């Protein structure tokens, strides 16, 4: 059985297919996707738009329904895994409720999941500290910068302590400098919490810098063209991006993206 073969697998996709029915006919968003994500992995999905990277992440989160093959999360169907609160999801935009304070926003999933008041407060403090927003709990979203808002939305996803964190281009709308800082922070967060992270991006340096595993995808139909296990050490200062290994991996990712494009 697949579970006995790979006991540390957290997310497993086998021959996964996903076809959208649109007015212009069916669109193959994912074709024959095979991938295993192990516990504690930091996996980036990179590829041009339309390659199905976001769709795959959404399928893991049971926000999209695969039309073929199998997909398991913690050995369960994505739907069951969601009901067991297996993952936290971070969207492209922070999407904080303007009528709630930062602490109130982070409390939202906790309220829905029925945590006690005392535990809610304790967890809010804890995750605010984790994303370095301690002391900002009473502020409203509009009083924070875009980068801080996105950090708050990461805190919201961490609040109920799911083992998996799924992030869909979380820093795509932020400028380069803020993005660099947040990348560093995400790595720190990953090291401290030991979570399994799925991260969608279209930035090669971001993917290489963050990941232990880089999944290169290409469009029409959306599929995986290369999976690269990063040889970089877990400890990664920002200037690792000038190292020989880093440049080699970046090169391989670029090659993978180009190969995917040439057969259009």
């Amino acid at each position, binding site marked *: 059985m697949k579970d006995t073969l790979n006991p540390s697998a957290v997310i497993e996709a086998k021959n996964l297919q996903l076809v959208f029915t649109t007015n212009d006919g069916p669109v193959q968003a994912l074709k024959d996707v095979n991938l295993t994500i192990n516990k504690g992995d930091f996996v980036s999905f990179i590829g041009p738009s339309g390659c199905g990277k976001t769709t795959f992440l959404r399928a893991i*989160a049971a*926000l999209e329904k695969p039309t073929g093959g199998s997909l398991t999360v913690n050995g369960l169907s994505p739907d069951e895994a*969601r*009901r067991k*609160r297996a*993952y*936290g*999801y971070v*969207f*492209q*935009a922070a*999407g904080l*409720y*303007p*009528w*709630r304070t930062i602490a109130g926003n982070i409390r*939202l*999933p906790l*309220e*829905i*999941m029925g945590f006690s008041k005392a535990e809610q407060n304790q967890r809010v403090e804890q995750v605010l500290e984790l994303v370095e927003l301690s002391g900002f709990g009473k502020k*409203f*979203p*509009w009083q924070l910068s875009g980068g801080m808002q996105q950090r708050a939305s990461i805190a919201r996803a961490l609040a*109920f302590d799911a083992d998996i964190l799924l992030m869909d281009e979380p820093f795509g709308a932020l400028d380069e400098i803020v993005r660099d800082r947040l990348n560093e922070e995400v790595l720190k967060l990953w090291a401290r919490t030991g979570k399994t992270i799925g991260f969608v991006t279209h930035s090669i340096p971001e993917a290489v810098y963050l990941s232990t595993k880089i999944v290169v995808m290409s469009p029409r139909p959306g599929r995986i063209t290369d999976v690269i296990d990063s040889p970089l050490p877990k400890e990664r200062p920002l200037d690792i991006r000038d190292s020989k290994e880093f440049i080699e991996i970046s090169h391989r990712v670029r090659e993978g993206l180009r190969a995917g494009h040439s057969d259009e």
Partner: protein
Amino acid sequence: MKRVAPILTVLLIIIAVWYAAAIWMNATWAYDQAARAEAAAPTWAELPGLTLNQDRPVLPSPHQVIAELARSTFGLPPSSKRSLVYHAWVTISGTLMGFAMGTTLGVLLAVGIVYSRSMEMSVLPWAIASQMVPIIALAPMLAVVMHAVGATPLMTKAVISAYLSFFPVVVGMVKGLRSPEVMQLDLLQTYAAPGGAVFWKLRLPSSMPYFFASVKVGIAASLVGAIVAELNQQAGLGARLLQGSYYGQTTQIWAALFLSAILAAVLVMLAGRIEGRVLKRMGMAR
């Protein structure tokens, strides 16, 4: 001063036009009086004196209306049947009751429409059709029906008021409850949030700006409904308007009209104040 100046200018122009119109419209009576007395026709200089203080003018002058307004508001005990305070209170109580009923009905219908496709298909066309019927035609029939089932005049008025005010609330709330973005709904889905949580924590708070926009329209519509309903009743500003026209008391009509306008302005302003407070507290003020 910069904000007040344009308003004052417009006000002054309106008052000037009004005085001119009052002289022109009431002049006929002054000329007739002179002809009957076989006196010389009044000169231009005499006209203002003869036209602006008539007992039964075609168009009462502004100061007459204001004097009548002051006399019947402050000059009489509020319990008097001739006091405008009494009539205004009768109108207000009907308005607020109808507004409460209409708003409740409107919100409930909107929730039904948003959550049920079949309700959207069946209720919405009827709600729109209901607003095509002129209220002035419907009010007397409703009054007869309500009387037959033993409803009080207040209840009848509230129903007609509600009939006018539920519609803007339905339209606004349907839009408001549907205003959350797909991403925000997806977020709640990732928490496996039950339907109730989606409604109370996302849809309802998101709809508040739309709700208040509708409320401002709805409260004014409620007042119109109450006044129309009172055309068939003994008391209230509507009844006062009708009595005034029966007895040719134009000044009384205008005073009641002004009070209605003032009431509408106060009610809408009050709704605006509450809107500002609530939206500010919700961090949604623009």
